[in-house]
């Protein structure tokens, strides 16, 4: 189909992106399934370029007439677009093979009954623990083919499976989840048991005073925080001056122990080995020992900034610039238990909620703790605390931190992070809530 579209296009340069997905999810609450869904669909997007003028059109119809109209719409839009003198040729590269286990047949073929069994294991755990539960079990598969008239052709198939569990009691809640490409690796009972454990340990929560705290962010919490730094590593943000590192690369912004990568091939989160221009994605060091080494580029920003194309384009049309979609933080040497054991007084945070940027350049973000926040005293977790709001610069947090030795995949489809737990001194909480 991609070749047929390219042959039919009268544009000087044409790119075709064909995406297909089958997403299924069984959501539950109070031991019933309240959203039980499946969606099968495809999308074909054409980018046409004529003398530096670009138009993009998409459709989900695959019949001959629809595809002919698709090309005509993209070309018509390109003819009306102003010329962009910086528009480079569509890139051509030789994509690497997909990393092992990016696609798992059993996940792609998982039935509603399979998801129901995962949910049932969670229900049983909730009932044994005398609480109610909410969450989901999901399985999904996707496929992309990208081709352009300069000769690029790349295809990828991937899968994703997840179980997400919140256990809720009278005065506390606990949460856990697991993301993988292989549904067979998901142990729903174990995930449920982790959530139950947090729910029980958090019972009868006490209030603590806001202010600067030593925090130990479990991987889910740290991954959520880090997601708000990802955009700073885009060449667009760097170029426009809104990134913390716009003042220059090859400078130390973080502590010596901070190393960060964009790695689509990490074994915990294997993903697509090329970007949405079909160009091979580099496994790229972003930060090495506290020094920012790279920002990610696509063909446009590589050309504009005279840097190498790192293969991080998003689908056209893209006004967000290139983005790192597979953040990985290098682990430390101590186990999570050792980080806790070495804490005189601090807070152990399971996850955050509703993080938003307060100050772009300083990377100050605000958000709430949620579903399992615990007081640590003399190296031991002594009980749950009511949730707190923080206002914290991520830059400052990464100047005084320590990482655990275990890495965990903390997010699913599209954007993943593989991170350890992080212990951070002087993390600023500004208020508390009632639960």
């Amino acid at each position: 189909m991609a070749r047929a579209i390219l042959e039919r296009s009268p544009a000087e340069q044409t790119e075709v992106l064909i995406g297909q997905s089958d997403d299924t999810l069984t959501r539950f609450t109070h031991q019933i399934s309240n959203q039980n869904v499946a969606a099968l669909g495809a999308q074909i997007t054409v980018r046409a370029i004529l003398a530096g003028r670009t138009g993009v059109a998409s459709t989900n119809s695959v019949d001959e007439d629809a595809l002919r109209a698709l090309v005509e719409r993209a070309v018509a839009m390109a003819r009306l677009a102003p010329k962009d003198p910086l528009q480079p040729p569509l890139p051509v590269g030789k994509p690497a093979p997909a990393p092992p286990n990016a696609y798992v047949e059993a996940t792609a073929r998982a039935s509603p009954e399979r998801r129901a069994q995962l949910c049932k294991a969670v229900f049983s755990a909730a009932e044994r623990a005398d609480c109610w539960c909410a969450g989901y079990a999901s399985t999904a598969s996707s496929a992309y083919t990208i081709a352009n008239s300069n000769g690029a052709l790349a295809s990828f198939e991937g899968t994703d499976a997840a179980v997400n569990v919140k256990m809720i009691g009278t005065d506390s809640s606990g949460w856990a989840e697991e993301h993988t490409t292989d549904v067979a690796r998901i142990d729903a009972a174990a995930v449920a048991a982790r959530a139950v454990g947090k729910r029980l340990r958090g019972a009868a929560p006490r209030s603590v005073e806001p202010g600067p705290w030593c925090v130990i962010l479990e991987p889910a919490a740290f991954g959520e925080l880090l997601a708000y730094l990802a955009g700073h590593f885009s060449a667009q943000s760097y170029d426009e001056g809104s990134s913390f590192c716009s003042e220059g690369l090859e400078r130390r912004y973080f502590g010596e122990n901070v190393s960060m990568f964009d790695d689509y091939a990490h074994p915990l989160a294997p993903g697509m080995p090329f970007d949405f221009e079909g160009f091979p994605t580099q496994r790229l060091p972003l930060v090495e020992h506290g020094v920012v080494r790279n920002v990610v580029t696509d063909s446009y920003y590589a050309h504009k900034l005279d840097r190498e194309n790192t293969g991080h384009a998003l689908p056209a049309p893209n006004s967000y610039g290139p983005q790192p979609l597979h953040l990985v933080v290098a682990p430390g040497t101590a186990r999570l238990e050792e980080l806790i054991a070495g804490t005189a007084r601090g807070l152990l945070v399971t996850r955050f909620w509703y993080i938003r940027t307060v100050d772009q350049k300083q990377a100050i973000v605000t958000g709430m703790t949620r579903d399992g926040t615990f007081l640590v005293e003399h190296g031991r977790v002594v009980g749950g605390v009511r949730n707190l709001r923080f206002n914290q610069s991520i830059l400052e947090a990464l100047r005084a931190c320590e990482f655990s030795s275990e890495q965990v995949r903390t997010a699913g489809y599209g954007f993943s992070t593989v991170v350890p737990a992080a212990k951070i001194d002087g993390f600023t909480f500004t208020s508390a809530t009632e639960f």
Partner: protein
Amino acid sequence: MSDASAARILDTAAARGAEYADVRFESARSERIEVRNGVVAALADAASTGYGVRALIDGAWGFAASDDQSDAGLDAAAARACAIARAGASIARRRVGSPPPLSYVAEYATPVQREPSSVPLGERVALLLDAERGLHADARIAVGRAWIDLWDSRKTLFGSNGTRVTQRIVQSGSGVQAMAVDAGDAQTRTYPGDIGLYQSGGWEIVEKAALSENAQRIGEEALAVLRAPQCPSGTFDLVLGGSQVSLQIHESCGHPAELDRVMGWEANFSGTSFLEIDQLDRLQYGSPQVTIVIDNTLPLGMATCAYDDEGTKTGVSDVIRNGILVGYEMSNDTAREIGRESNACVRAQSWAFTPMIRMCNLNLLPGSVPFEHLFDDVRDGVYMESNRSWSIDDRRLNFQFGCEIAWEIKNGKRGRMLKNPTYAGMTPPFWNSCDAVADARSWFAWGTPNCGKGEPMQVGRTTQAAAPARFRNVAVGVGYAGGHG
């Protein structure tokens, strides 16, 4: 999108054991144009056609969506919805779903003064190029953006109870934004409001925004904010501009009043709600000045339609009346649980998503004070406009919002400009501190095109009509309390 296709799906679902089924065929067209620093960063036209089938078996719903309109595809989607429903029923501890109580045969279309498709594409692009150019008041405007979004959706809901409702929904939006960068600081100004002007209707909505006429002022304001002093920290009286009141309603009333949240259906993701059912008709949510209503018939409302995606007829109902919690945003299944009837607050993002409760149009009714008099008896306060940061806890109590721009208020007069304004509070005390809402002359239907909820995540388009309002003794400046800035 034919009656025969619908009949085939409904027959297949019935044969597979569905006690009720419906299918929503939808064909949607969207256009996004964005100009960024003089370059057309997006000029895109998307078309999507498909259908979503809901099947009810033994009190459990199954949903399957597909874009395969062949007979085999229709049969497969119906069978898949039934298989999913049956799997859900097999693990459910109780029955929750029931067929809709009423059926309708009707048609509706958004009133459109000027069809967007009648405006030449070159004219649409030229408007944005001109507006974006106007933002660049000087070289410190590092990023200028101007954009238009156009949506046109035609959908028909067929129910096995005889419902056949066809609707055409047209929504349009546009805006400009300038980011000024200098001396290690970056400040952004957006117009209109904080996200642009989004309403139901055609090209007239884009024309009303008057982007080019306001672009230079917005660019100059972004530069002025760079130079402005930091907003102080402390307790102040607070006046919020209309678009910020709109967001305050959205986050601290709209989401907590979704009855599915109240019942725990969103507990693992969006969270639950402090507006618990035993508080109905009792909770003093806000001051007597605060009346918030659902109006899914509101002209220009982004969620305005004649029937929701369960086939319930839309109308007007109260959530907060003179400060008291009196209602929720409801679906058929959730309303039945509390002995009420749905108020048609169910929407799906597209054919590919199952319908669920959304806040739709939720409006703070105007008060009696002219906007310019809101400042009159404020001795020491802050006036904030245009949201740039928003966060609230998962029961919707503890919130913190930041705005793009503010002015101090001294002895009843608006004074110097301030940067980096933030304010925070707990929802009921905050709304109880509201002692004035501006009158109808400054009441405006502010649309939000990007409200997220549900798993899989769905994006909803909603309106919170509002006027500027005044709040007493509010915590201001907390966002920079960590010693930054």
